[in-house]
């Protein structure tokens, strides 16, 4: 089997004296949707940010397509065509939707800007209506769409998605998950997804990992995890 696109080996991350990740190992293969599920504070977002070098891992290695990116500055990591739609969406509030999308396209040197813009309008028609509105005035769901679209504008090889469903109406969540599934199926986009909404995430993902207190406790295919009794008890009870 070929080497994984993204590999974490024994990754530890600390905020001062607080240990957020205690040695995480995982692989994401090209063309896969892989999800990390876990409770609040388990370290999911920290893992996402550590991959991007902010904060840096204090121990362990992170490899992207065989290249060690553990010590690289964030902007150089992202220039390898990794894109992140981060926790809390982080839309630039005083830029228009259009400018937010331009920020995403900068990583692609604006090479396909007009085509990609049209493509985003197809995926998220709401963005077209809001194009010249300031990012800060959008609703939560619209901001989430914008965050994903902004990440896609860079034509990433790996898309990191942090809690795209947080605080959104079920209908919007379904729409966003459908888009991710389509992009993966039609374009082979590799997706690494962090979710609290374990049911949706595991249904969508090929494989999943369970993160508890900064360490991976379980891994398997999405379906296997969905049926695992421990996962059911901890993350799916009364869920969906």
């Amino acid at each position, binding site marked *: 089997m070929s080497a994984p696109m993204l590999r974490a080996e024994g990754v530890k991350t600390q905020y001062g004296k607080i240990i957020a990740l205690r040695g995480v190992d995982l692989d994401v293969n090209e063309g896969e949707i892989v999800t990390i599920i876990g409770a609040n504070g388990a370290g999911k977002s920290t893992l996402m940010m550590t991959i*991007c070098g*902010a904060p840096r891992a204090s121990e362990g290695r992170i490899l992207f397509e065989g290249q060690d990116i553990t010590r690289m500055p*964030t902007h150089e990591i*992202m*220039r390898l065509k990794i894109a992140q739609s981060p926790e809390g969406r982080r839309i*630039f509030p005083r830029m228009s939707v259009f*400018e937010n999308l331009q920020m995403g396209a900068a990583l692609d040197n*604006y090479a396909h800007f007009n085509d990609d813009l049209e493509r985003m309008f197809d995926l998220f028609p709401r963005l077209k209506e809001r194009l010249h509105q300031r990012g800060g*005035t959008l609703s939560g769901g619209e901001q989430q769409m914008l965050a994903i679209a902004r990440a896609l504008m860079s034509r990433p090889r790996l898309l990191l998605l942090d809690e795209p469903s947080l605080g959104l109406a079920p209908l919007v969540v379904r729409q966003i998950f459908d888009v991710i599934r389509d992009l993966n199926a039609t374009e082979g986009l590799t997706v690494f997804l962090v979710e609290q909404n374990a049911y949706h995430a595991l249904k969508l993902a090929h494989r999943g990992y369970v993160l508890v207190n900064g360490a991976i406790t379980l891994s398997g295919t999405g379906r296997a995890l969905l049926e695992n009794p421990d996962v059911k008890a901890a993350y799916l009870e009364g869920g969906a």
Partner: protein
Amino acid sequence: MDIFLQQLINGLTLGSIYGLIAIGYTMVFGIIGMVNFAHGDVFMVSTFTALIAFLLLTTVLGITSIFLVLAIVLVVAMAFTGLVSWSIERVAYRPLRGSFRLAPMISAIGMSILLSNFVQVAQGPRNKALPPILPDVIVVWDSGSYQVTLAYKQILIMVVTAVLLFGFWWLVQKTPLGRAQRACEQDRKMAALLGVDVDRTISLTFIIGAALAAVAGVLYLSYYGVVNFADGFVPGVKAFTAAVLGGIGSLPGAVIGGLLIGLIETFWSAYFSIEYKDVAAFSILAITLVFMPQGLLGRPEVEKV
């Protein structure tokens, strides 16, 4: 009416200079949240750079065209001052990023003292004068007893300011560089996640701010004809006041604040006492801040998230 018109012209001229310096304060505050107390002295360094360049060009090289000389002086002053400001950020502020909030500010005060003392030692404590340039004036209005004049220098200052502000606005609003700059200002971490080199952008912010201060420096020198090592302080504080009055972090605010401070100062000098002009300017600031703590164009604290 005649005095009013004259003071309006003088006030706008002075205000243009304050506005150009104020942009440097407001940009740096916007992007890294610190008040760059050395900025006024960076401005002062630019006046000396301009003076030396001017004398070299006119006496050593013997260039006679005043506009050519001014153009070269402008470029030299912008480049050198940008370099000074870039170095200050690298040496004195960047290592302290992530430290406690006051650390870079104290460092900035240190750099301010360093610059003014260095110039004092290197250039001497006395005023340095420039031979008068562009002495001609246009009589705008003659009431018989009083002539309202518009000096060529004043036209030069207003035109250069207007052109540069437009260019600068275009840079910030329309270019990828300006977008990266605004992105860093709004969310540095996210900007890095989109491939923006944040350190480089911060360096550029210091260079741009200093280059605009250098423009102000050249205009200041050609307007007053005299410079002194201590000249960084009062114009610096006034420009900072202008930035706060306009709403710190807001670029149009800095320009409007600068023009207002310039106008308040000149009108107060004309109609009341010249000794208290600074008191007037700062009092207006205090009053504005009591009723509008975010300044005239500053943004309210709340953003929808």
